[in-house]
């Protein structure tokens, strides 16, 4: 699998979760684990551009796919990615634990909806739990991120990826909510 543009060919224990593989085998500890049952969204990464829960996937399932983690959005020393920058400007984070998951979800959201409506914003972040901010600042950050994003189609994120069967499936995800 390719992770943040780098090919990783090392063998992986078949029962290793993608989240554990990223964190403990590859040291990509920016991807956090908040519930291990696919509800909180802290572990959200992009799989071929679409947000997925890395705690609900085995690492081996990512074989042949492109995985993007929070560490892959902006190189060390380089300016923040527009979504990261917007979270900073709008104080869209406090403790920072849920933040990488939110940022990855919003990158996915803006790829699909470059200028999201208020409802699309709510739905786009409604697969992620935050216990610190009360979401208001995160909503503002999404709007700001859309302003900061240079063009509607950034990076390698494709529209078609939203139909991936591995799309995040928490109880709060998008239209399936309650």
């Amino acid at each position: 699998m390719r992770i943040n543009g780098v090919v990783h060919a090392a063998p992986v224990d078949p029962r290793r979760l993608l989240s554990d593989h990223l964190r403990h085998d590859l040291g990509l500890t920016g991807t956090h684990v908040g519930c291990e049952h696919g509800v909180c969204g802290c572990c959200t990464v992009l799989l071929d551009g679409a947000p997925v829960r890395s705690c609900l996937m085995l690492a081996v399932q990512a074989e042949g796919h492109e995985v993007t983690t929070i560490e892959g959005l902006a190189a060390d020393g380089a300016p923040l990615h527009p979504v990261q920058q917007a979270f900073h400007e709008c104080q869209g984070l406090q403790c920072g634990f849920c933040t990488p998951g939110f940022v990855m979800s919003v990158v996915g959201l803006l790829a699909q909806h470059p200028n999201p409506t208020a409802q699309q914003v709510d739905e786009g972040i409604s697969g992620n739990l935050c216990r610190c901010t009360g979401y208001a600042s995160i909503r503002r950050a999404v709007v700001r991120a859309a302003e900061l994003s240079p063009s509607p189609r950034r990076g390698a994120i494709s529209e078609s990826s939203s139909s991936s069967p591995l799309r995040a499936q928490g109880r709060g995800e998008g239209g399936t909510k309650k």
Partner: protein
Amino acid sequence: MTTRWFGARVQRVEDDRLLRGHGRFTDDIDDGALESCIVRSPFAHARIRSIDVTAARAMPGVAAVYTAADLPFGQTDLPILIPHPNLTHGRTQRCLASEVVRYVGEAVVFVVAESRSVAEDAAELVQVEYEPLPVVITPESAALAEHLVHDDVPGNVAAELIQEAGAVEAALAASPRRKSLHFRFERGAACPMEGRAVWARWSAAEHRLTVYDSTQSPTSIRGGLAVLFGLPESNVEVIAPDVGGGFGPKIMLFYPDELLVPFAALKLGRPVKWTEDRQEHFTAVNQERGQVHEVEVGFDDDGKLIALDVDFIHDGGAYTPYGIILPIITAAQVPGPYRVPNYRVRFRDVYTNATPTSPYRGAGRPHACFVMERTLDAIAAELGLDRTEVRRRNLIEPDQFPYEVGVVWQDGNQVVYDSGDYPALVERALEMLGPRPEGDHIGMGLSPYVEGTGVGPYEGAHVQVLVSGKVVAATGIPNQGQGHATVWAQIVADQLGVDVSDVEVSSGDTRRFQWGVGTFASRAAIMAGNAMAVAAGMVAEKAKHIAAEHLEADPADLELAGGRVRVKGSPDRGIPLAAVAVLSNPMRYAFGGGTEAATQFAAKPRPGPPLLEGERPGLEATGYFSPVGSAWAAGCHAAYVRVDPKTYRLEILKYVVVHDCGRLINPLVVEGQIEGGVAQGIGGAFYERLAYDDEGQLRNASFMEFLMPYATEIPAIEIDHIETPSPLNPLGIKGAGEAGVIPVGAVLASAIEEATGVPITEMPLSPLKLFELVRAQS
């Protein structure tokens, strides 16, 4: 002091690494650590007949399996954190249970292995034989005491406390009108997004124990570990690294894992780590909010309070490690912002076979606010008066401060409100709320509240100007996302005349600052903020004295600005702080950023030794702040809500907050605290209920069933501030951490009652609960 940074909406300095995925939370630390898991009781109350760990120990990859019998401190009761004379029957658990378990999730066996998966597999091989005992789960059944949680605690009562201000019996008897009311609260949970975690390493060569702990009180953990393991405190380092939310329950002395992990690291000579999973978090981490209140209120025909008599039971859970702080806070906070001429409050803290309780954001205050506000609504309903008008008639007036309530506070002192303007909060909230929206099934709620913040005893800070001109500032109080690094930097930058970006803050690391208490009770800003100002002020004075010699000026004529010490009125006559830092250290070989600048101010010959009596090298200082009493923040929330008549879904149409936490250090940070607090309050009022069954099993121990709100449940919140500075600390600030949560239940209950027409006397609610209430009434 110039006030360039204090009060400004400074963007947070801690964000960059968190946004890049470079945060460092406890579970991110590895370093070849063995991993571990805890075998926990599946029963709420049972006698342990036998524990067999033979198969687990024999499993390949298992490093150690510990039962109580294997621990030198296995028969020691864990400490009661805050003893109290009325806690006559305090009981704490042992690190690992070996005789009786008293709640689901109580730790029994600790397994350490090469990996987490091996540890979990081995844990499944542990055989514990239990003999189930009768379970006491509701506070009401605990008070009835048909069964006992602890054999030697009669009536299941850990503590009872009665306080009275005025003469309640007589005043009630003389009241023209009286009402009896009953209120009930079920348990909720803080649920920070990061669970708890501990990592420990013993260095035999250095004789040093290093512990990373997702705690709200690393300095206290360090003190306890040093005693337990017989080490000098200087050989024990405890660090709270990035902590993914705390909200109260991450302060506890001790959770069993906080002893087990360091113990295993000492025994095994390898780093050991334990990371909680979400399911065990639901039963192993302290909870709160269970209380049952009986209220008798006397009032006159104008709706003015004459007497209030409150008798409540507090669900303490299986043990009382945190003493009786929670019911003490509730008892103290019921009167809130109102004049209650005669007030009596009695509580009993009772044992139940459930997870122990300790403060969770709000900590006994949401209950108190709910009781008072619901009582005022009941008075308004009986008299046919406007609810807000009844509140106006009872509010403490701005000229009544300092105001004595007549009951004791959590620090043992009397409750005395230091400053405030409660009527202004209410009127501003009404103004912001605006006209009622069109439509049916809409209700309005409004609730002012007070919050005792910033309890002592003290916090401290160390501030040092480096020879690079950069400033490092350290405090023992740890951070769980509140933006401490930013606000401390603002305070220090103002004192030293430097840019916020030049101040690097360290918190919660005993290697950097070894004294302190912890982050709780909305105390960090007041305690550590003022300590930072004290320490940085001392550094500024020292800088002036050193610079004065070289500028041939009187220190009183100098000021710190733009990274320099300069003569007031002649800004060109100055010396960079970096150079002052070099000069502060009379060493033989100078090096560092400020050296070149300092050489033009070469040390002038003076009689005596290079360091005169009382002088110390280095441009640094350590300062402390200790308050005479709590600062009382206040606010008012108001809302319009709509309850769907078919689904009973709650729609919050508008929610406004007026908040007074004294002088604002950083409005951006305070607003973040309020928005987060309101969201947690909405969750606690309408979605989050810990559902225990009669057997003491928690039936919704996952995020699938314990419904924390997503963005779709939380409305936009409009916030305004008024500032009545606290006279009790030099910066005039009051705490803000818990304010968002406190009145939310009261506001929503009032609004929902109006929208549905059914009396709301309990929390939390849910669509199903509302449906049942409406059906029961019709």
